[in-house]
């Protein structure tokens, strides 16, 4: 495995959703959007692709399927039946503030009832850090 980006996203998101909804999952009819905020994106995979292309090599097909942060959001959406919008942002200011602003817009505009906000940063030589928060939902930990 070249990158812990997707597994870490899944880990924090599932922990958050379980605290919010337990085994029952998101109630039917609730449209949960996903807002994923990351400046780094999947840095480890992007570096592997860059180095492989630079060397004239071929990339494994798995890298295509996880080449954008939407993919892991789609994985979560499928597993938890999250039918709201999927939006990925690269923060231009404080990541949490950016994410909350987008989540509020989606909720106020009516395409989402609640939003799973995920913040993740993959450092070049340090640990990957992530946080997940459920915004606007009826259920709370």
């Amino acid at each position, binding site marked *: 495995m070249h990158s812990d980006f997707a597994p870490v996203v899944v880990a924090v998101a599932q922990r958050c959703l379980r605290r919010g909804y337990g085994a029952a999952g998101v109630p039917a009819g609730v*449209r949960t*959007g*996903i807002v994923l905020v*990351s*400046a780094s*994106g999947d840095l480890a995979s*992007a570096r592997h*692709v*860059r180095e*492989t*292309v630079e060397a*004239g*090599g*071929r*990339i*494994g*097909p798995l*890298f*295509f*399927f*996880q*080449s*954008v*942060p*939407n*993919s*892991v*959001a*789609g*994985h979560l*959406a*499928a597993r*938890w*039946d*999250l*039918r*709201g*919008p*999927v*939006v*990925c*942002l*690269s*923060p*231009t200011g404080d990541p949490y503030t*950016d994410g909350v*602003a*987008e989540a509020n*817009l*989606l909720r*106020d*505009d*009516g*395409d989402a009832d609640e939003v799973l906000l995920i913040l993740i940063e993959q450092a070049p030589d340090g640990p990957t850090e992530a946080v997940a928060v459920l915004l606007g939902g009826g259920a709370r930990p």
Partner: protein
Amino acid sequence: MVEARVAQLTGLYAVSALGRGVDAQLAGVLAGVAAFGPVGRFDTAARRVTVAATLPEVGTLPDELAAAIDAACQGAGLDRAQRTGCALLLAVHGGPASGVGPAALASQLAARCGLSGHTRVYTSACVSASTAVADAAAQITRGDVERVVVAAGYLVESDQFALFDAGRALAVDGAVRPFSAGRRGLLLGDGVAAVVLESSAGRRRGVDPVATVVGWGRAGDAFHPCQPEPGGSGLARAVDGALRRAGLPPQAVGYVNANATGTAQSDAAEAAALRRALGGYATQVPVSSTKSVHGHALEASGLLELVVTALALRHGELPVNAGWLAQDEACPLNVVTNRPQETEATHALTLNAAFGGANTALLVGVG
């Protein structure tokens, strides 16, 4: 009487393999001649597919984006002083672009182009730009802001090309054939675009809006990391949202610029979505995918396609779906083939879908 707030497109600009500027885009999509050719920008020797739709003389992505934003602002009649306080929503790939990260790129573009409002960068793959437009329209119509510039860019480069090639997503026959029998996949294409969206401020300056974004919708499939839900449920809900916001019935839609990438399952899922959202009218409304001529511009695709959709609607001719071979029974749609179709329609949908089951629908109106 209080004037209803709307989101008007007062300035448009786009660059693609069809050429530079809005006239080149309109002429290109009406001509229906695909712009795909051998890639000379980087080595494709190790790839299965070696073609894309690229513009020969192209600058760096930051330079092309800055030029597009300036051109769109000029089209909207915005001088430097009038751009003050204007927000910039940018859609680009999440990785470093030309050595600079997305946030730094947005900051540089805002400074270069005199936009001092808030910035936001969308990295939601192929719905990045269309999500940005939906967000801009929402912010304007609810009165948060008066004016937003949405810009988006993707220039075909070696890493994404290699990834799409590795995923066997590229058409090995060198043609994009949306909704057609015998379609083999997508091909990438350059796309840089910028639009000015504003409330009725444009009219007050004496600017005639090109079109109005009258409806929008965003919805998820909740199905798979990369594949669309075969029944098109998420995309249909996005279309429902766009029609509901516009207060229009399906029969008001006179054209659909489909997401259709030329991929077997995705195009069939989109046809199912149209059937679900538009009912029996789905087999009547003229449909084409302009990706068949300018290629798939990934993060920028939604904005390039919004530009050509608005231009075509205003011009009164609907773009050709190039690469057509024969009807596919999985896609029972009224596809515009052979030649552009004259229209008096006043509303059109432009649809986009992405990995993660992300879907958007934008509904534009003219007249």
